[in-house]
């Protein structure tokens, strides 16, 4: 009962997803795939914040990566990228 407001988690912060829903795979909705140019990427994580499906994976070694099983290709990441490092490439240009 007696928690100070600083002990209560901030409302918008939820745990990072650890399980995926196998019954709602949305990767095949995508027709433009996000591709990050690692040379241009400043690792500001803006795309990681904005991705509505939590499909941006970030690691200090690899940098930004996308979970293509669930990425719908909405293009928010490429719109918000401040340096324009994320481009959208037609899905059929990739074999896999």
């Amino acid at each position: 009962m007696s928690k100070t407001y600083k002990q209560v988690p901030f409302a918008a912060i939820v745990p990072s997803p650890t399980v995926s829903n196998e019954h709602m795979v949305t990767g095949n909705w995508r027709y433009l795939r996000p591709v990050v140019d690692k040379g241009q990427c400043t690792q500001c994580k803006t795309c990681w914040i904005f991705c509505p499906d939590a499909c941006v994976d970030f690691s200090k070694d690899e940098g930004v990566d996308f979970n293509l099983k669930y990425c719908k290709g909405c293009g928010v990441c490429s719109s918000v990228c401040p340096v324009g490092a994320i481009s959208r490439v037609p899905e059929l240009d990739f074999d896999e």
Partner: protein
Amino acid sequence: MTLAVAIDPNMLEVTVWTRGVTLAKEARDTATLLAKAGKAEGKHVQSFDNYVDLPDRIGVPCKSYARISPDPIETFYEYENYRPDIVVLAEETLVKGHNILGGAKPGCVVVINTARDPEKLLKWISPKENMKHLKAVACIDANALGAGVMLTFDGTEGSGDDTKIGAGVGAAIAGAVAKATGCVKLESLVSVAENKAAVKQGYEKVTVLPVCKGEAFACGLPEDPQEIKWK
């Protein structure tokens, strides 16, 4: 008492795959045009959308159906085409990651709206065990022949849309289907479509790749593209 599922032996089943919101109307147009053209030829037809898909989400894969039969259609209580004869993809990426040949009948024809070569799209068509049923892959660059009708986001879900049936991309795709499969005649299709030029251009510009045992040209090249005739 058991209910027997009706089997219409002469019924052609057309499944049109599309993307929600951006191309949903065009796919419905393609299915509706094929059904209406069949009706103009005196055949029995049905045309409807998939009830399970939720096409109000942008980019979601969804389906529209048409059924054309010379005999009265007794299939009323199947709300999907489980055994398609013709599979139409209103957007090229749908070939990847969807079981578009699921339940396909022998002699199935796939028509794809793309600017790419049919040979390059063949490797993505799935499921692979149904590739032996595939007779031809046809490609039509319909996006160059007409514009898609994009539904608005005002909540009316297209009810205020006054574009007629077959005004854009869907008309060109329907023309390509008519050429590649011969399921309906060009004249009847032109008579029911709004954009008659797009139907004719789609009919003329379609590229048909004959497929045999899952491979292109495995059975040799027919002398005449028109040789790929329907039943």
